């Protein structure tokens, strides 16, 4: 059932819509317990504990932020150090050529600049968002008042069985859609942990 078109591929998805988060959370739990792969859950507002419930791994955005930050620190210090000691030494009020206290504010600014811009770009990459990138909308009311649970199908998945399963778990509307995944940089497949019974959940 997988059709390749360039780097992206067409996949089948079973889409279940919920109108209550009290129904959504147990449904997610049951879906994971049954072993279906959750593509994503689209909600009208940020929901506390949802990422934990879906079982996606912890984000690596902060590690990226740290690396971007120290890159900024290093850039500022080496840049200013080279300019004021090697390239164009100036006598400014009798201060040393490498006046560390005077460099600290600029070092701080560059650290923040690098970290923030780098993290925004990394975030866009991880979420596959960018101005101009087309994303498939599974349900128009996902930004309004519906919680949309999307399950990814493989070649072996029986869609009608999944749809029935979702309906049993309280979905008020279920349909099967074909959609293109990924984008021009390739894909960021969310690693999903299998549900364990002893897991403290929601």
């Amino acid at each position: 059932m997988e059709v390749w078109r360039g780097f992206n591929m067409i996949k089948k998805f079973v889409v279940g819509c919920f109108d209550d988060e009290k129904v959504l959370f147990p449904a997610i739990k049951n879906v994971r317990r049954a072993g279906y792969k959750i593509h994503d859950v689209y909600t009208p507002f940020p929901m506390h504990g949802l990422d934990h419930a879906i079982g996606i791994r912890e984000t690596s955005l902060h590690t990226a932020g740290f690396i971007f930050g120290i890159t900024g620190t290093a850039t500022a210090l080496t840049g200013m150090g080279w300019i004021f000691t090697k390239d164009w030494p100036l006598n400014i009020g009798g201060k040393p050529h490498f006046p560390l206290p005077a460099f600290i504010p600029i070092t701080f600014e560059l650290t923040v600049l690098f970290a923030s811009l780098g993290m925004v770009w990394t975030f866009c990459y991880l979420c596959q968002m960018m101005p101009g990138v087309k994303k498939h909308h599974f349900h128009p009311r996902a930004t309004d008042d519906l919680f949309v649970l999307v399950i990814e199908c493989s070649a072996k998945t029986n869609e009608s069985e999944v749809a029935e399963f979702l309906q049993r778990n309280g979905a008020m509307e279920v349909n099967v859609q074909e959609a293109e995944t990924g984008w021009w940089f390739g894909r960021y497949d969310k690693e999903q942990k299998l549900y364990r019974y002893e897991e403290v959940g929601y």
Partner: protein
Amino acid sequence: MNNHFVIPGGYKKWTTGLMIVGVVTLLAAIIFLHPLAGNKGDNVLGTRFWAVLLQNSMYWLMLVNTAMFFMCITTVAMGGWQVAFRRITEAISSVVPVMAVIMLIVILSIVFGHRYDIYPWLDRNAVAADKVLRGKSGFLNPTFYTGASIVTLGLWWFIGKKIRQFSLESDQHGPMDFETGKRWINKNVAWGAFFIVVYGLSVGSTMPWLWLMSIDAHWFSTMYSWYTFASTFVSGIALITIFVIYFKNKGELEYVTHEHLHDLGKFIFAFSIFWAYLWFSQYMLIWYSNQPEETKYFIDRIGTARHVGAYKGLFFFNLIVNFVCPILLLMKKGPKRNYTFMTFMCVMIIFGHWIDFYQMVMPGTVKNHPHMSWYEFGIPVGFVGLIMWSVARYLSKVPLLQKNHPFLKESIIHHT
């Protein structure tokens, strides 16, 4: 869970031991350091006696007072997450009166004993001959100093007592209904806001000028009070965290989880950076403008290119232990949720800011004769013992959980 905390025998022995060490140190110091010999000649030992007492009584008083401030800011901001361990902060703030009395005895002895080796503005002849000190004498004089100190300490004691009372009164009745809860919270917010104003006007501006900055009477810095505030706030949070971890380890505080610890860790992390920011703001502007009357403060500590200052090592050690270590070690999520690691960091930060106060007080008083031996360590040991003893004593009398606080549920389900 016991409703009241039963102080373990070991804890009692330890705190009593620590307090005995403090008292014995004080007695030995009275015998060996000649505190009453006056400032005639080169009586460095007498100066050392009073300087160490001033440093420690100031530091530990501000540390315990921070607990009340922390409670007030979270109350005014409608923060519910701290309710699960609110009694611990109350217990710590209940030590304020004891510390205030000790502090008052120390500063009144200094002022009325005319220790102008501690506060140069106490010397009338020097003030009359000095244009700068004469200009400041409307502010730096024994009457204003004593009056402001007594009013400040009195207000801290009074408002703190009031807020602790509200908390204890809420235990008397059953769970509050909506209207009662609203009225109770509003009452707390009003008194909390009052305390914040008093705290801002005392710790945030005037009192560090009088108590600490006037040691270097010629020098001035508009950053100084903020710097002192940041120093005491971060170490105060560290003290709260240590007690929270201790009681959690004892099997009390069943609703406190590593989520609460994580938030306390965030406070310590953020305010360590805030402290460093103020440290740097004070240092950099003085370094940059290079005015002799301002640079004197740092020359007394670091020295100059030709002459190494007596406090140079301590000065930079201060920066490493209070800024570099917390920012690097507490940056990740894991360490902030680890009880053992947080205990280590909190002890380190309290020690680090104690060093910070040491290098605030000593260069202006004992000048080039810094000591770091039995007396300097014995006195803080006594204070630590006193704080531990008083906190446990308070908590053995009242329930460890404020069970009727309207925000209790918010604290139980708290999730960072």
